[in-house]
């Protein structure tokens, strides 16, 4: 087992760095949403306008600092996508799957954090805003964050098909089926657009307490499997070639993978 | 497909269908002229019969009968876990309510 600094100097440094950034990014994301801003578990969807104003006032600094962190670092979500895209390119499937995955999840950044960050920041910046506008921002923040399912649904299905038909065994088949489990929870979240209370609302027993653990499990599993993928990636484990001949040696490999 | 396997599948189908028909009896016995009444016995029976069918389907139709021990244990554990979860939630819920 190589030490972590060794990994970042070795031949697979690009992959290992991407993996560590992925781990740190999801860790940061959890800390901001669950800890700092306390927007997970989500607020209650049935708050009236005045209660919304109080909700914003209650977590003033947490929201501003937490979402400030996301505003600065949110773009690093692309690192996990890049690593997964690369892993799909290593499968025996058409590159269409890899590029579809990359673009689908690149778009996912907008509902995945941009909308909620903008809406919550606007909501908390002016404590004396008209309560009805505060409620509108509250709804925009939570519903866009929780209820934008399409990119994740289609993204999971694309990944599922790629894993299931891949002959190179980049990921185990059971992970393909786990993608289906995740995709189905994206379907289950849809009623959060319809119910302001109850088990299917976005803070409900099904809407949050079943779906989010499934997503957490899925994320944990793919991070683990990506690590496994990097370990098996085979282009030598020695030191990087000397700068002079790296061009000659690395070009064909990069070409083969990246073309 | 040899005759004994064929027969065995047919028997399994008859058993699960008959178990399904028992539901009609349960259903009739607790209703008061079309008005539904709460009944712990009916509910527990309904859940238990469903789990029994689950096990028959897995053992016979899904061919777990011939599977390695690990799968046989796992499927049985799944049925038991579901039973504990469903009956437990129902009974605890009724006790609280």
């Amino acid at each position: 087992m190589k030490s972590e600094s060794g990994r970042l100097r070795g031949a697979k440094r690009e992959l290992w760095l991407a993996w560590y950034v992925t781990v740190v990014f999801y860790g940061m994301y959890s800390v901001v949403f669950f800890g700092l801003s306390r927007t997970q578990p989500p607020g209650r969807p049935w708050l009236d306008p005045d209660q919304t104003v109080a909700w914003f006032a209650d977590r003033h600094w947490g929201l501003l600092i937490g979402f400030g962190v996301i505003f600065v670092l949110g773009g690093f979500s692309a690192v996990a996508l890049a690593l997964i895209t690369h892993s799909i390119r290593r499968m025996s499937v058409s590159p269409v799957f890899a590029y579809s995955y990359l673009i689908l999840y690149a778009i996912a950044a907008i509902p995945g954090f941009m909308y909620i960050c903008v809406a919550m920041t606007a909501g908390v910046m002016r404590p004396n805003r008209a309560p009805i506008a505060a409620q509108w921002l509250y709804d925009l923040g939570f519903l866009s964050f929780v209820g934008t399912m399409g990119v994740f649904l289609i993204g999971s299905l694309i990944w599922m098909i790629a894993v299931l038909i891949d002959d190179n065994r980049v990921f185990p088949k059971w992970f393909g089926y786990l993608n289906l489990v995740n995709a189905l929870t994206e379907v289950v979240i849809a009623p959060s657009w319809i119910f302001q209370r109850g088990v299917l609302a976005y803070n409900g027993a099904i809407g949050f307490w079943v779906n989010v653990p499934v997503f957490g499990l899925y994320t944990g599993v793919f991070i683990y499997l990506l690590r496994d993928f990097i370990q098996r990636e085979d282009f030598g484990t020695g030191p990087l070639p000397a700068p002079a001949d790296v061009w000659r040696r690395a070009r064909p490999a990069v070409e083969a993978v990246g073309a | 497909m040899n005759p004994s396997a064929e027969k065995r599948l047919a028997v399994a189908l008859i058993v699960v269908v008959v178990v399904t028909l028992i539901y009609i009896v349960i259903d009739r016995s607790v209703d008061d002229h079309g008005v539904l009444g709460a009944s712990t016995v009916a509910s527990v029976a309904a859940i238990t019969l469903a789990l029994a069918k689950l096990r028959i389907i897995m053992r016979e139709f899904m061919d777990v009968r011939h599977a390695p021990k690990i799968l046989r244990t796992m499927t049985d554990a799944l049925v038991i876990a579901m039973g504990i979860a469903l009956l437990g939630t129902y009974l605890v819920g009724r006790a609280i309510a």
Partner: protein
Amino acid sequence: MGRLGARSAAAADVSTSRVGERIIYWTWVPLLVIWIASFLLFPGFIHPVSPRASAAEVAAFYRQDLSRVRYSMILFNWFGVALIPLVLLIAERMRAMAHRTPVLRYCVIGVAGGAPIVFLTSTVFWLLAAFRPDRSPDLTLLTNDLAWITFTCGVPFLVALFLFLALAIAWDDQVEPVFPRWVGRFNVAMALAVAPAGFAGLARSGMFAWDGVVSFWVKNIAFGLWVVVMAIALRPAMRHERHPIETTT
């Protein structure tokens, strides 16, 4: 695919792909002119609308400078997204870097659309606020806030893009790297320059507020500077040949 690849390698100098890349490259000049023009045209940019302004003041601003808000933002709506081809041109040049995997290139492609979407969204809010100047001032204030927060705090894709490029350049270990080393360090500096704007929500006055020195002037000038410097650095990189003999092996 194979035949196409062979042809472009054989006729590398005159290939249409290189002509096309040059066309996209030179869009940076008119784009920068248009961006600066829409920046100067927008009345809220020379003296940014203060986050301390009341609903009535904000509503008055949109009534007063209606035409300039509209035309400048239509212009920005058109051309803000033109950043995408430029970033993808850089991503395409990254193929020539001595990396073992395309992961960093995928990172750049992954954020290429992000910054333009942020520009686009903010223009939608500004144009929305200007569409009905007689709308209830509370709603105009809300729309105005959304525009400014999106525009000012929406730096995550720029920060990530700059740092991905910095790392890619630092790890481009070859005799003639695609970009000189200093471009990597410059990208780190620009990432640091735009990053504080992400926290603009924290301050309603002072240099960190959205009309402040750091969140407004430093951030926007840094972005403009980045376009110019990257364009200058890209010029020799455009000529950085992919050696045909090696690519065909």
